[in-house]
């Protein structure tokens, strides 16, 4: 059975490969990716660096099915022994959401393409006259 940990992990991997169709929304701090009649939304609330990032999965009617969040204002838990030593599966505290939000934002805004265009224009621009 799929759970939010798997969704977060997979989104992180696919977003890193630029394979998630993140789009801008009416909320400047929220980005949406649509998969047929299901969608995922990632949003940041509050001011950096103490912001909270929330990821939600929505059904065809736009109802929230499940969500995961990472509150940067809450200090990370005390170091624990590695999962292998505890002989349990690693619990995801969704700290991956913060970099995922940044990557989603870059894709939705076309940041990488814009930077590439800027570089191209900078390199093509003629020398500035000093006269």
């Amino acid at each position, binding site marked *: 059975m799929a759970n939010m940990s798997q969704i977060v992990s997979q989104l992180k991997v696919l977003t890193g490969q630029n394979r998630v169709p993140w789009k801008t*929304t009416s*909320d400047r701090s929220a980005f*949406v990716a*649509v998969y047929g009649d299901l969608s995922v*939304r990632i949003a940041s609330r509050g001011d950096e660096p103490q912001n909270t990032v929330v990821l939600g999965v929505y059904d*065809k*009617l*736009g*109802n929230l099915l499940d969500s995961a969040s990472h509150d940067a204002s809450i200090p990370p838990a005390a170091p624990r022994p590695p999962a292998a030593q505890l002989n349990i599966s690693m619990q995801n505290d969704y700290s991956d959401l913060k970099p995922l939000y940044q990557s989603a934002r870059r894709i939705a805004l076309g940041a990488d393409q814009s930077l590439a265009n800027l570089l191209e224009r900078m390199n093509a621009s003629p020398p500035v006259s000093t006269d």
Partner: protein
Amino acid sequence: MDVWLDWTSLAVGIGGLIAGILGLRFAFLANQSAQLAKRAATSAEEAANSARTEAQRALTRDLSLVDIERAIASISRLKELHRRGNWEAAVPLYPDLRRTLSDIRVSIPTNLDQFRDAINDAVPQVTLMEDQVSRALHESTELENAPELSEILNGIQQDLETLQQLVLSRMSTEGIKWRT
């Protein structure tokens, strides 16, 4: 006596042959008639199926048009409420719009799949809008991006109006009348 028997046997043989030929002819005719009846029944069934399919298609188009009209009316109402800043009245309208959009998505005719994608994009946008308005009301804060909300609604409305025109034009081409 032997000659008599031979003639009798011959007559019986010829009679049997004639009876056999007649029987075969009868069986052939009966079979042909059964095949014709079967073919007629199949044609009638195919015609009924075709009529049923066409009726279902027309019904789907009608349902889609009713929903499109309803969604456009909801969007117009929401835009008006947004303009007036009447957010309390807008909140209950978002779920209705989401449901209607979802119904439209299901009944979008084939070959117009690009509109299904547009509706797929619209539903989460409306959900987000609803969340933003609800949060602003809950926190008693001003909505800073009201013009952007209207822009999103305009985009959805534009897609719906284009879809409506395409469905109407397709119905007109196929000779299907739409209520006025």
